[in-house]
């Protein structure tokens, strides 16, 4: 087994080797090929990305749809969760509805939303909220309440109401799991929102991707992939930092 510093060293050398071959092959041997653009071309395309493709505005559109919807969804469920009475038959039936979406690829629902609402930014936001709700709902369904049964009993014996128990204990114990599930599905969330934007063809990273594909602009596609990878990586680090800071007991 390799320890962490060794792995880092190996990764570093692999990147150096990749860069070396990339430069040699694309700048010197196969300059102007249509399979993989050279580094100099990609650097030039970055300028294009910002000026012709309005990268910043489109990035804001995607980023806000993803992260605002995370915030909104957690907030809505956090407020609603304590009042969901598990003993109510009607609520139990209603809670079964989202299970239908576990088996339908979300992008199909997204396509339907685009058909109905076309260019709306808010429908993208709604779509992201819908996907995140499914993630959270799955976590809530999977959560093993028997792990905290004793804690709940102890608090119930202090005449604490059912709503308060759900708000102050059950939800609090689920929160780190929900957040962890969101981090695990973070890249998937990006992918599905980009796919939505790609079909919607109105704004966002998916829109740039579609336009660059239409213009056969391979250099822009590659530079977009690199930029998005960096942004997603940084966002994931930030989410992990928030997770460690706010759910320190987990």
């Amino acid at each position, binding site marked *: 087994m390799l320890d962490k510093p060794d792995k880092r060293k190996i990764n570093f050398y692999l990147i150096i080797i990749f860069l070396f071959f990339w430069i040699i092959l694309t700048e010197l041997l196969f300059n102007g090929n249509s399979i993989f653009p050279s580094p100099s071309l990609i650097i030039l395309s970055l300028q294009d990305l910002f000026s012709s493709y309005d990268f910043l505005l489109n990035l804001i559109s995607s980023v806000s749809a993803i992260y605002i919807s995370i915030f909104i969804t957690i907030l809505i469920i956090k407020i609603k969760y304590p009042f969901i009475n598990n003993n109510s038959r009607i609520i139990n039936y209603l809670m079964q509805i989202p299970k239908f979406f576990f088996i339908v690829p979300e992008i199909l629902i997204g396509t339907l939303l685009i058909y109905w609402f076309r260019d709306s930014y808010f429908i993208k936001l709604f779509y992201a909220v819908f996907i995140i709700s499914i993630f959270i709902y799955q976590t809530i369904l999977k959560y093993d309440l028997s792990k905290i049964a*004793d*804690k709940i*009993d*102890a*608090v*119930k*014996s*202090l*005449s*604490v109401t059912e709503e*308060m128990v759900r708000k*102050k*204990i059950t939800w*609090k114990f689920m929160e780190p799991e929900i957040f962890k599930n969101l981090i695990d599905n973070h890249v998937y969330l990006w992918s599905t929102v980009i796919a939505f934007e790609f079909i919607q063809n109105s704004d966002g990273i998916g829109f740039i991707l579609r336009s660059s594909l239409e213009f056969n602009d391979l250099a822009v596609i590659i530079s977009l992939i690199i930029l998005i990878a960096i942004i997603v990586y940084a966002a994931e680090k930030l989410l992990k930092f928030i997770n460690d800071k706010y*759910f*320190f*007991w987990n």
Partner: protein
Amino acid sequence: MTDLIVIKDLTKTFNQQNGVRKTILKNLSLTIPFYENGNITSIIAPSGAGKSTLLKIISGIEKYDSGNLDFHNSVLKIKPFIPQSNSILPWLSVKENITHWLKLKNEKVSDDKLNQIIGDVGLTNYENYYPQNINSGFQFRIAFARALVFTSKIILIDSAFNNFDLDTRNEIYTMLKFVVDKYRLQIILTTTNIMEAIYLSGKIYLMSKNPAEIFFELKNENKFNELQTMVTSESFKFISQQIQTEFQTHSGITLIHYLD
């Protein structure tokens, strides 16, 4: 009412996963006397007999199917239950864990009283620690202090010392005895541990399994000050033997009086 609790013909059934109803308690009757100066009453029963269910019913967490429960006039609606496993919240500090639920109910405890309780249960200087940084003995102390701030006269402890080593158990026993005397508490303790019951309790009940019924009770007037001297004493050996014999005769089981 002069007794602490009078339970008559208590029956409790559960729905099992296969849909079949299982009877945990069937027509269980029990009268626990009220002790003016406080007391620990133990209920010894084998695992799975329904000890936790009984305590939860007394506490009001679980509903029962039929029967009657009456409490002494001094017993408040809140009857704190301390379960077998750790029941404190990891995101709150020791002090917050103790006062959290009281604050949520818009009730207050004075700083003096809080500090006194914290001192009495042995948590002084640990107020700002988080539960994950302290051992299970301290976690029990927090749960106990949380029960104490509710000024309830009765506290229900469900086999909470099973996972403690002997030193920790000894410290907790000493703390319990002190606090019961000081606050004149009525504690009902369920356990599988004969030694623990004899050391702590003035009154001991023996409960069988399938069906759960109280088949023997004894008054324990011995005051033991040290666990190590108790286990070598003749009176301990006598009571311990008596309990073993009763279990053997009634249920055909042998309980171990743990010393590990």
